């Protein structure tokens, strides 16, 4: 069973829909025991970092999430909350990935970065189990104004205004800046790969 973390962020329903389409059993929950007992955990989210972290701390869900041992996938805001710190509301985050989340700044490019862009640009290798059987030039769907800086845990990068982490991975923790649940066949392959992790 896949547990989807229930918290005060939007877009959780679209992850449920995507898993249902793939025939994967799932449950939205904020019960620590259920999260710990799940085979895999997905941490989705669209929203504001400060409010989301406050909500997680008040319920001590932050401690539950970082102590999980099964495969864990953060999506979009979920990914950003897994980093050390976000400029959005100057928020201390979960600190799973040793990197910072910053606001895109550009006169020339439109912000948010919204639409289809590369899953992976030129200089990282797709060596993650999460990304297996995917072509190098695959496009995925992004909607975000903040980005995670490239760090040791970066396994794929995308370029918009500047290169940023599109996929992060460390031990049992995986995360994508893009929305696999909105990324057509490529996104479905990634969700399938995640579900198939040992």
């Amino acid at each position, binding site marked *: 069973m896949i547990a989807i973390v229930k918290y005060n962020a*939007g877009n959780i*329903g*679209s992850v449920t*829909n*995507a898993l*249902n*389409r793939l025939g994967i059993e799932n449950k939205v929950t904020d019960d620590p025991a259920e999260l710990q007992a799940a085979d895999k955990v997905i941490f989705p989210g*669209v*929203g504001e970092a400060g409010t989301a972290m406050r909500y997680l701390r008040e319920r001590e869900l932050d401690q539950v999430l970082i102590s999980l041992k099964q495969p864990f996938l953060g999506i979009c805001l979920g990914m950003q909350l897994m980093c050390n710190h976000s400029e959005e509301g100057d928020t201390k985050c979960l600190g799973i990935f040793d990197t910072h989340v910053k606001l895109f700044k550009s006169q020339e490019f*439109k*912000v*948010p*970065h*919204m*639409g*289809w*862009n*590369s899953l992976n*640009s*030129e200089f990282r290798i797709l060596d993650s189990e999460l990304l297996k*059987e*995917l*072509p190098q*030039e*695959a*496009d995925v*769907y992004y*909607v975000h104004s903040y980005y995670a800086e490239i760090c040791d845990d970066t396994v794929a990068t995308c*370029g*918009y205004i500047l290169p940023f982490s599109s996929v992060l991975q460390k031990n049992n923790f995986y995360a994508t800046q893009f929305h696999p*649940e*909105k*990324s*057509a*066949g*490529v*996104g*479905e*392959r990634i969700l399938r790969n995640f579900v198939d992790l040992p």
Partner: protein
Amino acid sequence: MGLKKRIIPCLDIKDGRTVKGINFVGLRDAGDPVELAKQYAAQGADELCFLDITATVEKRDTLVPLVREIAAVLNIPFTVGGGINDVTLAKEIIKAGADKVAINSAAVKRPELISELAAELGSQCVVVAVDTKRVQNDSDNGRNINKIEINDKAKPSLLRLRSAQADGLTNKVFVAGGRIETNLETIAWCEECERRGAGEILLTSMDHDGVKNGFALEITDLISRKLNIPIIASGGGGTAAHFEELFKDTHASAGLAASIFHFGELPVPELKRQLVEAGVEIRILST
């Protein structure tokens, strides 16, 4: 490699059914928006737009369940618009699984709605649809708002726009499905939409809509360079060459069309193949 230009088929919905005979080969029910949505996603559409043209005020009863059904089957983003005039309905539609809501007449009537939706849902969920038409400029007032600074490096499209102004034509916003002219000048209105928190502008040129002789390049170019939010151009796209010039001659982020996709005149895969050949950055199906 960078952000790809989006191709967006638009479907008109009435009482939960697709309007006009949409002619897809092998489709069981050409009037079922859910079936069509799946088909377009499989063809490689980047996003879909559903416009509900149901006349009744109480469209919640049919629209919200339909959005829920579409969200369950669709693996790409989609926008829902048509008669959305309050925050409650917009929230219901987003909660049912739409990625964005589009508002049009209601925003003109009460521009605060844009700010309210942006605060409640986030700007990325708020599309303002703007229907624009060039009309004879009969007042000094209109001419002043529309004044554009032209320098030596101005693009030809700007110069064309200036000549249009010299001809006494102004771009005006229309509402109620294009039936009613407002006193809003199009560029100024788009700027106000952005200022109030719109995440995107869906710009439909009524001079070009349904004519299939190309998008309204001048106004699209001007607005897409002036604003820092994405512009979806609509109206006039009839051939791949029209989309090519839209993406090469303007800063539009997406092109929207209806009948050319519905009637198989220019299927999405064929359009994308031709755009890739023309060197436009487009998402191609890779799995």
